[in-house]
């Protein structure tokens, strides 16, 4: 498939899902979209899509589960598992071609990984990672110019000299050395170390020379265009160089001052400048969506922009929230925009409801909802109680909605009848999910309120005893709860 076709197909399928009647698309749409995400190695979107697919569709479409099994193995990087899942079923016409391409891509990625990380590796391991039987695998290695020792069955890959591409996907953050989290320790040999060292020296030289020039030409009243361009390059590689974001802000202020002083009003030039800054932040966010510096610079630019396009900012927020709904930078940015341009509370509440309905397991959405002055009258309390109750009953293992439930229950407007109804419902749920500590905790929250009679105290003691058994990590907390009686 050609990459422009993929983009078109992805867009079509996503559109079909969005516009589907009653919010439920056809099994074929779900299948194809899930398969396309695997082809693109976009496991996060695959995961979110799987969570959105209604249980009824999953139950009636076994092939969908088969595609998901491939995804699960890809997530775990279980190569033998991936190939097994791909080849143990006969795919229907609607996904067969895509799944074949998924296999090709997985194979190609593992070959690249082997070439980057190993100077010698057993043939059996290469065979497992590529899903090719040993003899075919050996022949393929030789074709790539890798040496294969027949007696020891050792393969010696050759590392390709590759150009680094501009964009890194979240998967490829393996070698992102400026980020301290989630760097898997990969064993390398002398040869690999030497190669890596050369590349690193190149990067360091570029950084050192770049910083030197930028700081040397830094001035309150004028700026050097080359330095500005250099700063963009350095920030794209490392958006945490906060001094360079400061530098760029100074340049923007110089341009703003110049435009006031110019006799001929040239709004366009200034706007072009602002747009360039926004473009830079967007580029930085693509490779690192969690950099404080990038988000702050973007907001700062918008505050100075003569014609900011706020709708576009909402679209950006929505895009990043769908890429990672737990990215708090994005949610904070949204809040800033909302406060700046004064969006109606009702609209934001609707947005929050929509996000929650897309994915119950989204702590960030529930949190956002809690900030929208949502529990301000009896009706809204009752509505939110229903909403959160649905969530915990649909997926009692996910913790997000339970935290929100606790908060709703602490509202003085909850009626005795609502509490009793919920308690009964929880008792029933407990029969289906006897190991779920949250159900018992919710019962504690309900029973604890108001004056505690002897009967309530007995029940609470029983609940806490059960909780200690089910959730031993928090024994210290439950014992303290006990002590109150």
């Amino acid at each position, binding site marked *: 498939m050609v990459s422009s076709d993929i983009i078109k197909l992805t867009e079509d399928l996503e559109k079909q899902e969005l516009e589907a009647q009653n919010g439920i698309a056809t099994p074929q749409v779900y299948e194809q979209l899930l398969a396309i995400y695997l082809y693109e190695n976009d496991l996060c979107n695959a995961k979110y899509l799987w*969570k959105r697919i209604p249980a009824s569709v999953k139950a009636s479409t076994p092939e969908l589960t088969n595609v998901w099994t491939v995804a699960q193995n890809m997530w775990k990087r279980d190569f033998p598992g991936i190939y097994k899942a791909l080849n143990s079923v006969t795919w229907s016409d609607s996904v067969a071609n895509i799944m074949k391409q998924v296999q090709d891509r997985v194979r190609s990625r593992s070959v690249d990984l082997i070439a980057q990380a190993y100077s010698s590796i057993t043939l059996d391991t290469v065979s497992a990672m590529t899903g090719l039987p040993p003899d075919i695998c050996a022949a393929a290695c030789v074709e790539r110019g890798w040496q294969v020792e027949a007696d020891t069955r050792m393969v010696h890959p050759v590392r390709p000299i590759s150009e680094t591409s501009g964009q890194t996907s979240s998967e490829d953050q393996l070698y992102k050395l400026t980020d301290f989290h989630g760097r898997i320790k990969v064993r390398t040999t002398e040869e690999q170390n030497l190669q890596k060292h050369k590349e690193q020296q190149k990067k360091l030289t570029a950084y050192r020379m770049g910083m030197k020039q930028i700081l040397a030409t830094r001035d309150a009243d004028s700026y050097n265009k080359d330095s500005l361009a250099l700063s963009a390059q350095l920030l794209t590689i490392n958006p945490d160089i906060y001094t360079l974001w400061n530098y760029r802000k100074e340049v923007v202020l110089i341009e703003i001052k110049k435009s006031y002083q110019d006799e001929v009003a040239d709004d366009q030039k200034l706007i072009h400048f602002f747009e360039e800054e926004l473009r830079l932040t967007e580029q930085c966010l693509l490779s690192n969506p969690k950099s404080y510096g990038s988000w702050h610079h973007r907001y700062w630019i918008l505050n100075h922009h003569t014609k900011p396009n706020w709708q576009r900012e909402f679209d950006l927020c929505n895009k990043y929230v769908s890429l990672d709904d737990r990215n*708090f930078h994005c949610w904070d940015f949204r809040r800033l925009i909302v406060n700046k341009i004064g969006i109606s509370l009702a609209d934001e509440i609707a947005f929050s409801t929509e996000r929650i309905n897309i994915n119950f397991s989204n702590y960030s959405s529930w949190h956002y909802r*809690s900030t929208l002055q949502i529990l301000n009258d009896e009706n809204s309390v009752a509505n939110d109680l229903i909403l959160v109750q649905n969530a915990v009953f649909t997926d009692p293992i996910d913790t997000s909605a339970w*935290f929100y439930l606790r908060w709703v229950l602490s509202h003085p407007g909850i009626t005795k009848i609502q509490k009793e109804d919920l308690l009964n419902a929880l008792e029933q749920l407990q029969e289906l999910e006897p190991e779920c500590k949250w159900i018992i905790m919710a019962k504690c929250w309900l029973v604890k309120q108001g004056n505690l009679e002897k009967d309530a105290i007995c029940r609470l003691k029983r609940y806490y005893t059960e909780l200690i058994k089910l959730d031993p*990590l928090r024994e210290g907390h439950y014992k*303290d709860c006990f002590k109150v009686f």
Partner: protein
Amino acid sequence: MEKKDIFYPDTVPILLYNKHIEYLKHVSCSSYGNSYDFKSTESIRMSGIYWCLTALDITHSLKEFLQKPANNSDSISEEERIVNFLLQCYNPDGGFGAAVGHDSHMLYTLSAVQILVLLRKLDLVDKHKIARFISTLQQVDGSFAGDNKYSEIDSRFSFCAIACLYLLSLLDAFDLQKHPSSPFGIDTNKAVDFVLKCQNFDGGFGTVPGSESHAGQVYCCIGVLTITRALHKIDTDLLAWWLCERQLPSGRLGGLNGRPEKLPDVCYCWWVLSSLKMLGRLHWINKEALIFYIRACQDPETGGISDRPGDCCDPFHTLFGLAGLQLLGAASELQEINAVFCLPQYVVDAIEEDCCLDQLRAHRDKNAK
């Protein structure tokens, strides 16, 4: 529901005390300055030095390290090299940048002051000038910006400001509540008010009012409230419960995450633990399981600690892993660490800050064990 989990090894090593000292010495010494990992993290350098030196101090290796010759020359020691670097980062506006030529920032001003306090070299700088720089960062609503030009607001900076003033022994002198006619100072009541506004429905704290609760922000906000003796203003039990829910069962290991439905990470072990300590609820997490987790994150080959078992280690996670183990009482070899400042307790004890010192000492004794 498919849940991503950590990789956990079959066996968990004991505390590799000497290995960590070896690692720390390696990443702290001047010759390490030629490495890529070092050079590519220049924009957080000041904090990196603070992590290394504090970790060396709690492993009783700081004094020896500081006296070593730098760059294999006899002319200056490692200590002098570090002090020279620090002074070059001391900008005319009174703040510190992360490295030479980098702009002043609240984060690196705190790290610099922490280093100076560790080295007992505070007299080398004009403490009042630093305090004045900090006071210019407070906003009308009591929050603090990261720098005095571009107004990035974050509750982390509130902690940096208050902690820094305390370590400079100037919190009292610069408190406008106590000295209303002073030309420079911060309004501690407003600072507390802003922090309280960052508290959420779940008892946790976020970056700014309305931001999602996050263990790192919780540590910062609770730190502010502890130093300013305003802890009584929050729902302690609710927050402590949210914090203890950060512990995740994974076989024998029970690491801590930073917020719900996220993976565990050694740095959160520190921020959650120290917060629980300040709240007097350290016993609400399972110590054994957490100790196993931190020990599983050690690198037996090079020494050092990483965020998760099997990942690369670094000074940041090494400090917080060791500090966490010390707080848990699992490392008698280590110096006692202070939960509020993440500095050795003996260093904090030496700070002359009359109004708060006794309170913090009393608080510490009450929450011991």
